């Protein structure tokens, strides 16, 4: 039998939730615009370590590594193109990584994470609002991080044209990790 901890007690207890993410319940996707048309994609393979205590969010941490070659897009042509040198250059830069530097509370269950995103060998400061929700035995952080693809040289040469592929890309993260670690 499982012992249910009352929520009030749980919130009052300074427990740190630190664990590798439950990848089956996690998703890293992105949305961009091509000629004003919204196009969605994602990364099938990534790993994440998230540590977040709602009582002390400022000591929380997130470290996410994405396999750039696992990109998924609406067509196989687009996937093949995305791995090329002009885009992710997945051969030379097989991973992208986000490491948080600070997490701040921004209201009930709302937070703002700031950190460094390294993509195609380029590191930039990025920031994203996110929410924390408990779903059964899992804690789920979910948010959208706007990034400039050109800041990371994603889409070089002719592809720098933002009329065809917009510069802003919304990285959508939904990372689930065990609510308690014992």
């Amino acid at each position: 039998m499982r012992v249910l901890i009352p929520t009030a007690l749980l919130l009052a207890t300074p427990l740190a939730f630190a664990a590798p993410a439950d990848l089956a319940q996690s998703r890293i996707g992105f949305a961009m615009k091509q000629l004003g048309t919204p196009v969605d994609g994602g990364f099938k393979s990534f790993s994440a370590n998230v540590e977040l205590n709602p009582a002390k969010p400022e000591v929380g941490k997130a470290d996410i590594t994405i396999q750039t070659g696992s990109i998924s897009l609406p067509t196989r042509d687009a996937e093949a193109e995305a791995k090329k040198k002009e885009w992710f250059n997945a051969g030379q830069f097989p991973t992208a990584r986000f490491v948080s530097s600070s997490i701040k509370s921004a209201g009930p269950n709302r937070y703002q994470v700031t950190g460094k995103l390294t993509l195609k060998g380029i590191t930039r400061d990025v920031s994203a609002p996110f929410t924390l929700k408990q779903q059964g035995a899992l804690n789920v952080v979910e948010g959208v991080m706007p990034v400039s693809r050109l800041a990371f040289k994603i889409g070089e040469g002719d592809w720098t044209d933002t009329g065809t592929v917009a510069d802003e890309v919304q990285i959508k993260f939904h990372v689930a990790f065990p609510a308690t670690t014992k």
Partner: protein
Amino acid sequence: MNRPERYATPSILLHWLVALLIVVGFGLGLTLSGMPLSPTKFKLIGWHKWLGISVLALLALRLVGRLLWPAPALPGTMSPLAQLAAKGGHLALYALMLAVPLTGWLMSSAYGIPVVYLGLIPLPDLIAANEPLAHQLKDVHELLNWTLALAVAGHALVAFKHHFIDRDGLLFRMSLKQPRT
């Protein structure tokens, strides 16, 4: 030469506008189908979709026009069989003008890429993303396009036959200018 009645002016304008859109849309489709991915290809795909959706919207207007202003009678010199063939041909052209853009739209939805008309008006996805179905719809779209190309070529050839061989003035039904008498 007898002077047959012409189609209503809006019907004539729509006919030629749609003809132009179909020719350009077909040419674009043919061009982009062999191209590697590039910003140019993205633009051509966008224009191709917008042309197709335009044809679909104008088709609706043309059908309304058909109801408001019935087509002028075919020349009495045409045999009943020829008249039947003409009506069947026109019906096939209308069916293809519906089926070609519709399969293109379906194909785009199946690929998981929405159609945003002129980059401004998002159209609903007709079906959920389904890659194997998208490939099948692409084949159907291409086959229907070649069928439409054949139908349009036949339509034009028969029109020229009426004009240059039968000399029955049939072409003036679709002329923006009054025939000289």
